[in-house]
């Protein structure tokens, strides 16, 4: 089904979870959008007006929250939120980009062993050790190319341009142009 066949507002496949708010003219599509959506927040996911999320996977934990502004275009990316992911207005995010606000597992070797045990097939309900979570902020007019990775705690400044395949572990200043793994700044001011 091409994007033209879809209605330009609302969710088109099954029931939209009750704690998702869609602005006027915004659209979420794709069979896997809410496969890993476990948030119990009052408003777990909000899209502003005229935003589109085509094939985006919203993997949101019980306390997770994702806010997307107006006029954003997100295409086949993965948003993993245990805390907060905030995306501004006029943001583009490309295919296969992963944005996460948590480490998933603890860093300390001994704690990681107990996490592996808690995750094993027969350990249902066993408490997992805490992994570090830090919110992610993406400013206005940001471009994030395909196959990028945004790790926890990063802030992407307004107007930044993140090239394809970049791995962002540290915050990016406004209007910067970054690329690479690990990402480095190639130019500081795109407005000049």
């Amino acid at each position: 089904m091409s994007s033209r066949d879809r209605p330009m507002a609302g969710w088109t496949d099954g029931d939209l979870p009750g704690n998702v708010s869609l602005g006027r003219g915004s659209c979420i599509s794709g069979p896997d959008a809410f496969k890993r959506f476990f948030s119990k927040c009052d408003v777990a996911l909000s899209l502003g007006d005229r935003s589109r999320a085509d094939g985006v996977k919203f993997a949101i934990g019980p306390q997770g929250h994702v806010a997307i502004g107006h006029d954003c275009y997100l295409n086949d990316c993965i948003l993993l939120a245990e805390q907060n992911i905030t995306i501004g207005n006029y943001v583009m995010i490309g295919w296969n980009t992963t944005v996460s606000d948590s480490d998933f597992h603890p860093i300390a070797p001994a704690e990681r062993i107990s996490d592996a045990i808690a995750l094993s097939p027969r350990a249902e309900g066993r408490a997992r050790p805490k992994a570090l979570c830090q919110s992610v902020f993406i400013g206005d007019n940001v471009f994030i190319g395909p196959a990028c990775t945004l790790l926890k705690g990063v802030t992407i400044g307004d107007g930044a341009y993140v090239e394809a395949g970049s791995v962002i572990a540290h915050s990016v200043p406004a209007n910067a142009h970054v690329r690479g793994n690990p990402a480095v700044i190639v130019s500081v001011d795109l407005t000049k």
Partner: protein
Amino acid sequence: MNGASRYTGNRKLPHDWYDGVIPDNVVLDSTNHIDTSYSFQRFRSRMERALKLGRNAAIYSNSMFDLGPKACVEVGAFSMLNGVAIICDEAIHIGDYGLISWNVVLMDNYRAPTSILKRRAYIDAVLNNESSVMDLQTLPRPVTIGANVWIGHDSVVLPGVSIGTGSIIGARSVVSDSIPDFGIAVGNPARVIRYLEAPRTGDPATL
């Protein structure tokens, strides 16, 4: 991850969406979990113990065991393979308590040769399913991943690499050289950026 969806002993998974079986030379027990037999679609190993799963190890969907005829893969106890591609012609060893994230590729052989003519012969062999030709093109170099290693999503571990106990490989890294124990390595190519403090109680694999 629930009790009903575990291996029942008849080599067919009760919860499987794919109409296949677990090959006979996969060694596993009732504590293991495998999401789908589709992960064995490219399984060609003829070794007696081609894949050995430690106790409580789990293989989740999107994993693929692309094993050549002489491949032996071992996955340690409590290890979790969450959509991992394993390309093996000789040996890949994953230690206990491994956490291996989605779309990670572990390979012990590039398979396709670098010379253009040989690569053409390889492609012809693959397209004609001539296993005898396609398995002799390049030499495998075994991969060893120690206990308690965590590999971030979309990373690639190249042939001949060994990763030490307790190490962390960052997301989307390409590991082309061996990583020492308790190192944190990130980037392409992966470089050690710092070291973790080793647990004081002796061998971490026995914690």
